């Protein structure tokens, strides 16, 4: 009888855990496009239709205005996307701690990853000093995505942590870009 009670307790625990996990991960994948659709698609779609359908009618002043509007909406998109990706339920410190504790990768591999992250930070700092960060942003993103992919490939044996890093990638990049030299 006690065993059955234990089994029911285990089942409810599993159910709670899966609901909490789905809230953050599963629904994040689904919810991101929805929230983005709500906050972004309407203004950007309007701009797009004006640009596509009536390019000759639009005056240079209004097209400049539209470019500004598009830029603002794109920035809002990025912020919204970063915020939407923030649904990780895990802080940076916790993430670093979990990487340190993970048994999926060995000590020397962790050191190598750490060196790669430090190199990336150095690269960002150099760009900041040259005031070329905005210009080189696509390269920064490319380099960061490569780093994340590398870490995810190494964390093949720890899919939970790998997923958390993937979900939190926007906030990780944000925090790396905000680090003062």
């Amino acid at each position, binding site marked *: 009888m006690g*065993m059955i009670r234990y*089994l029911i307790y285990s089942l409810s*625990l599993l159910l709670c855990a899966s609901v909490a996990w789905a809230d953050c991960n599963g629904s994040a994948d689904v919810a991101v496009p929805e929230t983005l659709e709500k906050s972004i698609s309407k203004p950007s779609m309007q701009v797009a239709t004006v640009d596509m359908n009536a390019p000759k009618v639009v005056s240079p002043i209004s097209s400049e205005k539209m470019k500004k509007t598009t830029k603002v909406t794109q920035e809002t998109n990025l912020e919204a996307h970063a915020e939407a990706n923030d649904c990780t339920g895990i802080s940076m410190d916790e993430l670093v701690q979990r990487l340190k504790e993970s048994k999926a990768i*060995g000590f*020397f591999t962790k*050191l190598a990853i750490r060196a790669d992250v430090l190199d990336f930070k150095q690269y960002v700092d150099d760009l900041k000093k040259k005031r070329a960060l905005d210009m080189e942003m696509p390269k920064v993103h490319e380099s960061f995505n490569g780093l994340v992919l590398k870490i995810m490939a190494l964390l093949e044996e720890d899919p939970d942590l790998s997923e958390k890093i993937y979900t939190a990638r926007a906030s990780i990049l944000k925090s790396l870009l905000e680090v003062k030299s």
Partner: protein
Amino acid sequence: MKTWLGSGVLFSLVLFVSPAWAVSEAQDIATTIMLRGYACGGQQVSQIDKQADAQGNQVIRATCPNGQRYQIDVSAAGRVKVKPL
């Protein structure tokens, strides 16, 4: 009742037994070599020699399955460099 008990025990095992995977040192060194862009030809190295100096710098020499021998320098600051021998 027996089936219930059996499935309960199995379920608890699945739930509460943590994964026992851990990377061996040979695998760790092989991954580090590959992470630095060198071919190793396998998941594990052999013939591992380790040396450490008073400053805390470490030098590891290991042979990959493809026969290539590498030296891994780990500085006291935690910087990792790999060079083929």
